[in-house]
């Protein structure tokens, strides 16, 4: 994710702007806070120890099962996410906003694009009628399981998709969920976690392991980050991708331990952990293994206690015979974890950095809810910065899924596999463990992919010259093209320029016989122009 790449490369900009005095004060404050937190942590650890003693036998057995049982590893549940047991009280946008959000059509459009895959016909008006709070809560706390609305996906020959067997069908299968799910934020969060815990089929090899991981990410999409991290840690695709299965006592592999801190829970360049912590945490994660079978690939993922390192490990200054589940919990309990998670979540929805008060309030919502994701996302989606800040370039799959939703087109070809790739985002194949670089979504090559995607969306519904209006004015033509695309809001300068283009398209003269057919051709051109214009590539 871009946020992390920036962090990894450069120290936070904030630091540069501070005066020496401010720096000193900040350092002092930080030291005090850290000391307090250490104290609290120690207290907590002591309490935990006492509690653990009480039910030593039961706990040990449970831990062994959690770390070593085959069941938690084999994630096969593909059911939609269950609804939260109880819906928490509304979270106020944090901190008390300086300005209120005037929630009109442009704001509803932005919410639908940032927290989903754009509007289907009627969505914008429906959300505007609900108002900001109810609109956000309808996305964050969907009721019941997700329904997939509309025709099931098909390939070019009209056959059902075969995500396990046919190249590219895995990504098209997911694209279809993005297009059809009536719980768009659940899908959007699943995509976000795919980027966050980026795992590529390039190395994992198996489509099934990737689809299993996808179900895992969806199951926890708006649930508990602790549960998510627990399951990702023993997920076969992740164990394969970051070499968990090569991580054994006496021969540790640090790959997962490093990334779990750098990319998943704490962030690089924040002073959160040392190289020693990486080495020690790797030992806590030892023990997973799998078998290689020719023709099948990696299989039989399991925890093998004989390969686990049972010595004491010291992670973040805390020493113990840490096991797998202690390993990720140590990261979650790290004082710099909450601020990392909420800022990284924020950066997925809002391009400019949050102010310190907002970070603190979001971190409070996160920790206070026991590492729940929904309250944080709810607060972010209600924040005025989302509605009044800068635009964001739509991710390629968001752009493509959105075009399909806007035009009511279903997934009736598997061409989307290569079109998504051409546009710069092949699902299940993120470019590295750091995910996609959102700051580089658009270059002239990926722009071509977006143009082609738009052409593929529009090609089945081209305006017909035989029945088209013979008198449509340029203004009317632009309105018709906008309506065809679900009436997206354009900036005034873009609308004016598109009207100019509409005028230029027939400037070469129109023969009398061609009044209608030329206007139909112009209409098709305007739809392409609007679908691919900068205003529609961003939200």
């Amino acid at each position: 994710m871009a946020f992390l790449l920036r962090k990894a490369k450069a120290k936070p900009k904030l630091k540069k702007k501070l005066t020496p005095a401010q720096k000193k004060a900040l350092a002092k404050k930080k030291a005090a806070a850290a000391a307090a937190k250490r104290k609290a942590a120690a207290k907590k650890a002591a309490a935990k120890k006492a509690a653990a003693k009480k039910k030593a036998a039961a706990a040990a057995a449970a831990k062994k099962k959690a770390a070593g049982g085959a069941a938690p590893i084999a994630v096969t549940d593909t059911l939609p996410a269950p609804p939260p047991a109880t819906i928490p009280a509304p979270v106020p946008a944090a901190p008390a906003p300086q300005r209120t959000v005037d929630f009109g059509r442009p704001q509803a459009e932005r919410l639908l694009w940032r927290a989903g895959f754009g509007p289907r016909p009627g969505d914008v008006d429906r959300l505007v009628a609900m108002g900001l709070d109810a609109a956000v809560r309808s996305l964050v706390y969907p009721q019941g399981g997700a329904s997939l609305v509309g025709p099931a996906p098909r390939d070019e020959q009209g056959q059902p998709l075969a995500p396990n067997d046919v190249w590219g069908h895995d990504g098209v299968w997911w694209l279809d969920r993005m297009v059809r799910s009536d719980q768009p934020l659940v899908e959007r969060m699943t995509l976000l976690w795919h980027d966050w815990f980026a795992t590529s089929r390039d190395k994992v090899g198996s489509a099934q392991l990737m689809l299993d991981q996808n179900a895992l990410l969806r199951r926890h999409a708006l649930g508990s980050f602790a549960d998510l991290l627990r399951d990702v840690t023993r997920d076969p695709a992740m164990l394969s991708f970051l070499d968990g299965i090569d991580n054994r006592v006496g021969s540790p592999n640090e790959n997962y331990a490093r990334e779990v801190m750098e990319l998943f829970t704490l962030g690089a360049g924040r002073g959160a952990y040392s190289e020693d912590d990486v080495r020690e945490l790797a030992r806590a994660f030892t023990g997973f293994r799998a078998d290689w079978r020719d023709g099948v690939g990696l299989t039989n993922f399991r925890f093998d206690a004989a390969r686990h390192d049972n010595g004491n490990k010291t992670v973040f200054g805390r020493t113990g015979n840490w096991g797998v589940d202690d390993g990720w919990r140590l990261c979650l309990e790290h004082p710099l974890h909450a601020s990392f998670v909420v800022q990284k979540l924020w950066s997925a929805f809002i391009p400019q950095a949050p102010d310190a008060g907002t970070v603190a309030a979001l971190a409070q919502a996160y920790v206070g809810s026991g590492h729940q994701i929904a309250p944080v996302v709810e607060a972010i989606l209600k924040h005025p910065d989302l509605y009044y800040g800068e635009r964001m370039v739509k991710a390629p799959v968001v752009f493509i899924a959105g075009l399909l939703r806007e035009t009511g087109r279903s997934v009736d070809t598997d061409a989307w596999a290569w079109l998504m790739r051409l546009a710069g985002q092949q699902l299940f194949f993120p470019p590295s463990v750091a995910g996609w670089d959102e700051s580089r979504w658009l270059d002239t090559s990926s722009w071509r992919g977006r143009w082609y995607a738009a052409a593929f969306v529009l090609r089945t519904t081209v305006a017909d010259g035989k029945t088209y209006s013979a008198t449509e004015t340029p203004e009317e033509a632009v309105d018709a093209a906008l309506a065809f695309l679900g009436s997206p809001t354009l900036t005034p300068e873009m609308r004016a320029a598109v009207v100019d283009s509409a005028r230029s398209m027939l400037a070469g003269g129109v023969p009398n016989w061609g009044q209608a057919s030329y206007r139909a051709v112009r209409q098709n051109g305007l739809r392409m122009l609007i679908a691919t214009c900068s205003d529609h590539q961003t939200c």
Partner: protein
Amino acid sequence: MARHCDDFTRSEALRHGIAQAGRGLRPIEAGMPTPAGTGLTRRSLMLRGAAAGLTVYGASKLMPEALEAGIAEAASGPAQPVLVSVFLPGGVDGLSVLAPTGDERFASLRPTLRIARGAGKAFTEDDRLEWTPAADALRVLHSEGKVSVIPAIGYDHPDQSHFTSRHFWEVGATDVQGRFGWLGRYLDQHGSADNPLQGLSLDSNLSPALAAGGVPVAAVDDPQDFGLWAPGVWGGVEDPLFSAIGALGTLPTEDGALRAARRVATQVDSIRRSLGPLQAVAGKPAFTAPVTYADNRFARRLSSLAAMLDAGLPLRAVTLDAPGNYDTHSGQASTLADDLRESCEALLAFQRDLEHRGLAGRVLTLVWSEFGRRPRQNADGTDHGAAGVGFVVGNRAGGRMLGEFPGLAKLDEHGNLRSTFDFRSLYCGLLEQWFGVDAGPIIPGAAGFARPALLS
């Protein structure tokens, strides 16, 4: 259907993965080299319009405008010699290209996978060998003195991993650590700082042989697939539509994301306007090849290449993969001949195309594979071997055999064909005699390799 070894499939997958992933992929065997060029910065821009994706590598600091200027400047200079490198992926069975039907061990080593004496046409430079019918197109060119045959090319201590051996050929050294391709190093030392077309892979990814350390190089998947296309748009509306893309990109804005998106639109338009000799107009192809090519991707790419050279695009080193998979561990008879025929016939058409266009004196084509296959067949295929077959094709090719066929009587200790000609001798010769540069700084240990005369 021929079956290929896991190593080949996995090394292909891994290679592809590494080129994209940059890090995090574990080696699949100890000491496996990283493909040359891994980690190069990548910049993409477009060659003429929104369809022809030209991916430029190693030019992160250059703006598209600079690249266009560099291409234009290079195009206006004197015509340069061009080397085309064609790779036969998987390790082609040399004994199925030039069959040693006159070698008395051939029948016992190849009880089923051989052609009978007289089934092909004689190889005029060694009467033990016969051209297999599938490679007849090459024989035709050889009979015109336009093919130099290397019947046993390889290197000492041959490595039988696809990945490793191919890497050696790509970097021009038996060095698993090599990060830059031999053609990339040539361009680094003698190329242009801003002309990415000087090193061009006709593929979706850059060939590691072209991986350069300092100069830009490029990959284009299908040069004929260009021109913007919009459904239901034709006639006089097309041009205003495409022009509008650039016009909408020039709108001023305070918003960072809008600015970025608009800037890309202007870049698309700028390249569309400035680089266009190959663009299809109104649905008609931009050029008609003067000869007939078969309808396959390799032939299409070669046909585009001839047109690009004819249009004056400043290419110097071009790489592409031949069709087929030559890793024929089993079912060799079912696929090899077809793959070979498709490859050789396209090369013949390309040569004829260049001759028609008057470019034949300026282009030399090198045909290579990572190794040959074992002389003794298995049930119905062949396993990885050592020395293989190679060719240099072109009007300026010497047309004389390089090295010799070592015979099947004395194979190496693993039962493989011994190399009689080092691939680095060929590289040194091409650099010095074709490109006219010193091979010393490009090929490690260049002084130690023989320098046979390559050109006529």
